[in-house]
């Protein structure tokens, strides 16, 4: 990685090599939630830049890791509860709740979210859980689509993803045109943005394991979303996180659920293939 110094020469090489701080490794730890072992490390699928995929959980401090491991203490579980209430609540002109059609989410939604984003043949674009919720609200309930990041949207998304806790992430790129969205997402992932001129890969690939100020850089995996962020004392959706990371490069950032961010969701989710869904993960 550091052979870039070759071009500098100047005998600086040796001095620099010794001055390099030790790489801060992710911890070697196992995550068990309610007796269920999570896959927080797994071999990468073919064509992946990494050999091993690591959950963001491995990069967090011990207290943060413990909070996620204990579902009684995990603050994100409050949103799961709230999501369960929304699931059962009638809304819209058709007098229906989600449960009217989907019954008990513990059965009907089990493992489902681990395979999102999927291809939406009607819209001819990828669909994620947030958009699937909106689709059912509008078409099947006569209710309005949620505004981005409203507490109800986050709670219901968290609730549905939580029904896949422990299920390995697996996106089926053979659906519809999903592969070309993956291609586009990959382009975006490696494109530098903003005045600071960083790509996603600058931080989450080239420097995963390093500290950037106080932040221990992870692989930027999506498997824990929505995540409970201690800093914000709130749930953070995946597109909110994407926007935040892009904003930090001092760039204009795309709208939630825009083509750019949907493509990025397809690609970034694929980068976590085989990791367990951890929703609601706890992060800093």
């Amino acid at each position, binding site marked *: 990685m550091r052979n870039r110094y070759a071009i500098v020469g100047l005998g600086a090489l040796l001095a*620099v090599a010794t001055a390099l701080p030790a790489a801060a490794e992710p911890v070697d730890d196992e995550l068990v939630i309610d007796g269920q072992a999570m896959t927080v490390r797994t071999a990468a699928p073919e064509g992946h830049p990494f050999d091993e995929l690591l959950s963001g959980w491995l990069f967090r401090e011990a207290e943060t890791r413990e909070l996620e491991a204990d579902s009684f203490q995990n603050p994100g579980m409050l949103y799961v509860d709230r999501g369960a209430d929304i699931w059962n609540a009638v809304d819209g002109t058709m007098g229906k709740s989600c449960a009217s059609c989907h019954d008990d989410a513990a059965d009907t939604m089990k493992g489902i979210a681990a395979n999102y984003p999927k291809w939406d043949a009607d819209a001819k674009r990828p669909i994620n859980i947030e958009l699937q919720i909106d689709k059912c609200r509008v078409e099947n309930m006569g209710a309005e689509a949620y505004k981005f990041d409203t507490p109800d949207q986050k709670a219901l998304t968290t609730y549905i993803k939580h029904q896949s806790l422990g299920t390995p992430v697996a996106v089926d790129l053979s659906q519809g045109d999903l592969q070309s969205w993956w291609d586009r997402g990959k382009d975006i992932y490696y494109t530098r943005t903003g005045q600071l*001129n960083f790509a996603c890969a600058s931080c989450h690939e080239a420097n995963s394991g390093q*500290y950037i100020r106080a932040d221990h850089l992870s692989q930027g995996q999506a498997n824990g979303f929505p995540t409970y962020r201690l800093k914000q004392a709130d749930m953070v959706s995946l597109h909110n996180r994407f926007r935040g990371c892009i904003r930090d490069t001092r760039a204009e950032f795309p709208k939630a659920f825009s083509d750019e961010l949907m493509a990025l969701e397809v690609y970034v989710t694929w980068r976590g293939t085989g990791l367990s869904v951890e929703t609601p993960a706890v992060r800093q």
Partner: protein
Amino acid sequence: MIRVTAIVTAVLAVTATSAPADETAPQDVKFEDLAVAASLTGKPGDPAAGRDVFKDRKLGNCLACHTNADMQKELFHGTVGPAMDGAGDRWEPAQLRAIITDAKQVFGEQTVMPGFYSLAVGKDVREDLVGKTILTAQQIEDVVAYVATLKE
């Protein structure tokens, strides 16, 4: 009388142009042998001011990526780049100026270190920052002067 007025107008004219005539614009910086020989402002930098630029999150925020033993009191030193200790021994000021002005000119396209006085930036730059560099020419000189003091 007439002569005095003429001088006054001339002075005003000079101070009115926002980028001082003796300041090198980002696109005019000359990189030779991985170095930028001339001060970007024609003046030496101030190491004390440069020290602030180095740690200020809104300015250089160099500490985000570099540990620096001279700043033990500051929390959270990043590890993305090499430690700054002894950088003043490893590099001549002209080389430091090149690295800090536009690290890509020295380390190649792949480096993650931002170009602090360069307009070769990423896409979709935040609207209010278009055409602007991260640091001013004076701040570059100040931080160059500061890093040059980091000797072991």
